């Protein structure tokens, strides 16, 4: 017994998947009872933009975390309107991990998420508004601060505002000073808001 080396070609090039890799077979495989087959199908569907709707539909039924993770990655790569709408839909789910994965995926799609951000921040459900702010956390988009200011100026829900202030601690500029001071006055009895606003103001003044 010792170290063994197969011929390079055998060792690493044996592709065990048997079925076809065209869109139709992949969509069929996406419904396979075996998670590993669904994973591979979801991954290979990256090459087929027409598969977005099927992936979105599968996502809501999929209970294997490893398959879900791949579907989210594929939707991030495809990134069209249907994909984004499917991700938005996940924000409204009762399932915390589904929501959080959707948030993570949307952070990677600044150009696609930007046009709908205003609507998300105006959603009647405060949870959705909080998740929209969570998306801004890592969104590489020049409007991030403006969106956050919109929130702290108008949103009546303390936790939506609190989440926005958390981010302003990192990205706030001089433009945020006045709105932050006003927010403090809107929630005088909330120690957390007072703390977070003071921290944001301190960071802005220092920069």
């Amino acid at each position, binding site marked *: *017994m*010792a*170290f*063994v*080396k*197969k011929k*390079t070609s055998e*060792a*690493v*090039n*044996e*592709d*065990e998947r048997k079925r076809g890799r065209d869109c139709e077979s992949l969509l069929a495989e996406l419904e396979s009872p*075996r*998670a*590993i087959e669904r*994973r*591979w199908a979801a*991954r*290979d569907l*990256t090459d087929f933009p027409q598969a977005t709707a099927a992936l979105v539909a599968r996502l809501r039924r999929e209970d*294997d*975390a*490893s398959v879900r*993770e*791949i579907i989210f*990655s594929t939707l*991030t790569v495809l990134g069209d309107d249907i994909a984004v709408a499917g991700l938005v839909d996940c924000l409204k789910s009762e399932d915390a*991990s589904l929501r959080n994965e959707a948030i*993570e995926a949307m*952070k*990677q799609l*600044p150009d696609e998420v930007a046009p709908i951000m205003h609507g998300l921040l105006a959603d009647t459900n405060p949870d959705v508004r909080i998740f929209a702010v969570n998306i801004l956390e*890592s969104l*590489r*988009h*020049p409007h*991030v601060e403006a969106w956050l200011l919109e929130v702290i100026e108008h949103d009546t829900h303390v936790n939506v505002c609190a989440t926005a202030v958390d981010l302003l*601690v*990192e*990205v706030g500029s001089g433009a945020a000073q006045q709105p932050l001071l006003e927010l403090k006055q809107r929630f005088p009895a909330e120690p957390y808001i007072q703390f977070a606003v003071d921290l944001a103001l*301190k*960071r802005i003044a*220092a*920069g």
Partner: protein
Amino acid sequence: MPDMPSLIGEEEFEKFREFFYRKTGIQFETTKRYFVDKRLIERIEATGSDNFRNYFTMLRFQASGEELQQLTNIMTVNETYFFREEYQFQCLVDSILPEIVARKKDDKPIRIWIIPSSSGEEPYSIAIYLLEFWAGINEWDVEIISSDIDTHILAQARRGMYSDRSVQHLPARLLQKYFTATHQGYQVCEELRDAVEFTRVNLSERADTRAYRNFDVIFCRNLLIYFDDVSRKTAAETFYDALKPGGFICLGHSESMSRFSSLYKVRKFPQAIVYQKPLEVL
């Protein structure tokens, strides 16, 4: 006189520290302030930013995320040498392999994948460790595959020629046993060079990685931390598919799976924390 870029205020340092921690998992103690400031100022100057504020905005919002990679590079010391982070190799022979062998139902080889291969110190260290410190090597076949994106570095790894510096942490006995001193440096013996299969792989290319399956252990140390969020996620998914159920993955000392994926189980062994693909997956 323009603002001196060479001053970073306490609040700026805090802001940077939180951001960097969120992105990389690396948490600088306040005692590291001088180290961090020095490197930040270096990057502020190199990128032609006027001050910390402008630099930070670029770092946070840059679409390519390149600057964050640059900065991570200089904030971490990424040197490769024989027996670097040896506690993980101890973990391999004392904890991981015994567990794998105990539940193994066939007599196929145990497969280990090392990526990035870099110039070969790590795969050869593992081969030496198995020969020296794992009795199981007398009973089991082991396949070691070591991959890198860079074909030049792979050629160097195959040749197996190393400087004094590379081998300085090797016990003299092992240096003598497995290396030949030449006028160009220390060359790894033929037995070890034959033991490792070197292959070229781009971890972000599905076509490159899909044939990599059925590994028992993957070493991916000090690589993912330099990737952007999407590439890290892809890599973590690739490793998941490359591992057998119950297979293990070892990351670098400053890396945590908490920034890459939630699919793996966190396993604590006496020597190290490693990550495991769940056993019960289909």
